[in-house]
């Protein structure tokens, strides 16, 4: 839990600051000094002119600017009247837009939290599977066919151990005679699921078998084995940080929601645990 608590603390500090700041700077229509007055300032007009220029790649004429101002006055009048009538309530688009804006705020905050290296280290260990390098094996092999006799296997094995040339079935095959250091999942995709398991505990350089593949029976010579390892944090710092943020932003959004929801007494039927 520690991993969550520390960033959460930073998060709430930043969160508090942002919410206070928004409270100060955001235009608060509901608290206009004179609710019956509508004032369009020079700077509002300038903003309208800029928006026009961005779309049409030229400045508006005076007539056009006047039309823009009139349109925004009309919008303001209608919005205020609509609010008086309560038309903004129960509108699913407005509601989802508002709740979404709150999510954006949380998201923006989550990406600004910088975790301590030890938090990332813990995250790395908890998700070791994702960052581990694959186990790799290098080997050579001889394919003896689907069901060779014990005598055939014995003969081929002795020959190989005596360093004599042995061919697969005396005919061509597309199966590679050897593979350089290759991830076990790739080896299994060539020879069939589970083939690489046959290399566990083998002695390097010694021909052994039989080992079963998706095609039949093989004799194999392990050349080298490179175990899976977890790289140090410094090698994959950016990747871990990105994943940590992704996971964290979900946790933080939920924590943020729970903190806000705590301010309310919520009365609702509970369907969990009920039979369908």
């Amino acid at each position, binding site marked *: 839990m520690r991993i969550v608590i520390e960033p959460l603390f930073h998060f709430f500090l930043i969160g508090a600051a942002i919410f206070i700041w928004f409270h100060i700077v955001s235009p608060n229509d509901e608290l206009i000094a004179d609710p019956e007055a509508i004032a369009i300032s020079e700077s509002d007009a300038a903003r309208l002119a800029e928006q026009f220029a961005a779309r049409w790649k030229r400045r508006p004429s005076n007539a056009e600017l006047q039309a823009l101002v009139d349109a925004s006055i009309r919008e303001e009048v209608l919005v205020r009247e609509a609010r008086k009538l309560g038309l903004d309530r129960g509108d699913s688009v407005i509601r989802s837009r508002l709740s979404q804006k709150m999510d954006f705020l949380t998201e923006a905050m989550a990406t600004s939290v910088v975790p301590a290296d030890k938090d990332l280290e813990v995250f790395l260990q908890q998700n070791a599977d994702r960052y581990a390098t694959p186990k790799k094996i290098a080997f050579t092999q001889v394919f003896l066919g*689907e069901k060779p006799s014990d005598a055939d296997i014995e003969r081929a094995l002795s020959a190989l151990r005596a360093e004599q040339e042995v061919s697969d079935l*005396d005919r061509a095959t597309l*199966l590679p005679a050897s593979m350089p250091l290759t991830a076990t999942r790739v080896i299994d995709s060539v020879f069939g699921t589970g083939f690489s398991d046959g290399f566990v505990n083998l002695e390097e350089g010694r021909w052994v078998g039989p080992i079963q593949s998706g095609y039949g029976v093989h004799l194999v010579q392990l050349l080298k084995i490179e175990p899976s390892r977890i790289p140090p944090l410094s090698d994959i710092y950016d990747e871990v940080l990105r994943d940590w943020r992704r996971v964290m932003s979900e946790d933080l959004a939920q924590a943020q929601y729970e903190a806000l929801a705590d301010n309310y007494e919520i009365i609702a039927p509970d369907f969990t645990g009920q039979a369908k």
Partner: protein
Amino acid sequence: MFRMLLSLTALGLTPVSAFADAVPSEEAAEGLFSEQPYSPYANRSFPERPLWGDTHLHTGLSLDAGAFGNTLLPDEAWRFAKGEQVISSTGQPVRLARPLDWMVLTDHTDLMGFAPDLQAGKPGVLADPKGLEWYKGYKAGGEEAGKAAFDIITNFSQMTLPEVLLESYSPGADAFAFTWENIVLAAERHNDPGNFTAFIGFEWTSVPKGFNLHRNVMLRDGPIRALQMVPPVTQPPYGDTDPKALYAWLEEYQQKTGGRAVAFAHNGNLSNGWMFPTEDTYHGGKVDEEYVAARAKWEPHYEVTQIKGDGEAHPFLSPDDEFADYENWDVGNLDISELKTDDMLAGEYAREALKRGLMLEEKFGVNPYKFGMGGATDSHTSLATAEEDNFFGKSVSVEPSATRIKHPFIANDLGEIPGDLLVASGYTAVWATENTRAAIFDAFKRRETYATTGPRIGLRFFGGWDFNDADVETRFIANVGYTKGVPMGSDMRPNEGDGAPSFLIAALRDPVGANLDRVQVIKGWLDSEGALQEKVYDVAWSDDRVADQNGKIPAVGNTVDTETASWTNTIGTAELVTVWSDPDFDPNARAFYYVRALEIPTPRWILYDKLRFGAELPEDAVLTHQERAYSSPIWYTPAE
């Protein structure tokens, strides 16, 4: 030495007398690999194993995919391709049986990034009345959402999208550039040279009047080059549906960034004859010197099999080929706004296009349809599934469920493609020396690729003048193949004698899949009368079957138990290796040869739906099929 030979072939050149001192004599080459060097990795300048990938996949960033409820974005698509388990848009856990080695992510560029903004109800979208209507439909879910999605696609194909929305999600708009940056950076995050290659790409979605002229584009490059441009679109005034506009973009991309790009088309079967023209192009142009040169330059590859039908051959065009009738979609164009007529088919199928290419080469000196073969899913679910027993459908609406078979892909007054006809296909295998963007891209350029309908069938195909039966005995097929011949996708070296070409062919079944029925060589040629011909040869088959009086090898049989969706490898064989020489060779005729390897019959995906969900299948549904691999061709051109 060997590397040099290879690279010359890669350039499409053939070693000629000027290089005589650089080319080993045959005796010298033969001795090249006979002794095993101490290091087992020495002497490997040719690809050892095929790298498996998907050239065509959509995420929720694509207009149609997102509108139909795909909420998975590139990160999830990449993680899935690399073998991680993900939760699909319909909430189902899903994982590939075997990870892919590489992938090209190809979101539609038109209105790229609009769909996630619609899903989220961004103010820019809601400000437009149509945008608001679609958002409300999407939020309502179910049938309403489906209607909204169809309305979006209809407005797209009829080019009646609201101007404001079009402007906000087209080149020039911040949102468009931002989405492209997301796509590029996601690919970069997941690109892991040596282990997994993540290509930066896109789909250029030209579909004038419902005629499918789509092209996918893949870049050889990383973000530094890819971010210098934004991809092209087709909706006017921001883009154009004429492929010439795409070629111009590709030219500019290479000029401006120093990068490299290729394009490849798919689903000629939904173009109503416009995919492979010989006289006029859909856009009112002529198939002239300029057209054939540009097409040859930019399109060295073709996506021959995918969810929306298999496009190798059609029974109408190849009446003597009993395997041509495979997963064909031949009702109409993409939105069935025009029905198909037989005369359109020749402009739609890969085999016919390869033949037409010979004719155009005779006329212009350049073959515009000299392409390698590939398969892709074209899934719109962010999930590159092409296996019958793990098929997540074309779009989110047909992810696994008891009723998905009943959802038609499209149905209108003119015709219908029922849901059970979706094809769980396909993948592309690439013979590349390493798993990197550069090596795989270069293999596409030299056409050393092959297509499968999903299974990982191993396929080698070499053409030369002196392969013989002894070559079948060799342990190292690739050594012999590359030394004495050229690999799939190449031109035959000039014939020094007067014999017929010979081919070294080997096919290996999927290690966890079905046995092989047979391997065939398909030959197409331009005869002395100027007519295009084709012939299918059975060259190797299982179970010691004997040809009947018509020269046909009898069918291999069928072990599928439709109750349990299972089969047994008691028929067929694991591996087929042969040397085949053309018995009908005419040294004066332009020709191509490619290989088709067929599996024994196995269950189609609908049988797994029946087994797992108890899904009802239509009475006439096709329950079993013979999955297959298509090699890229090898071309023979007569000496001057």
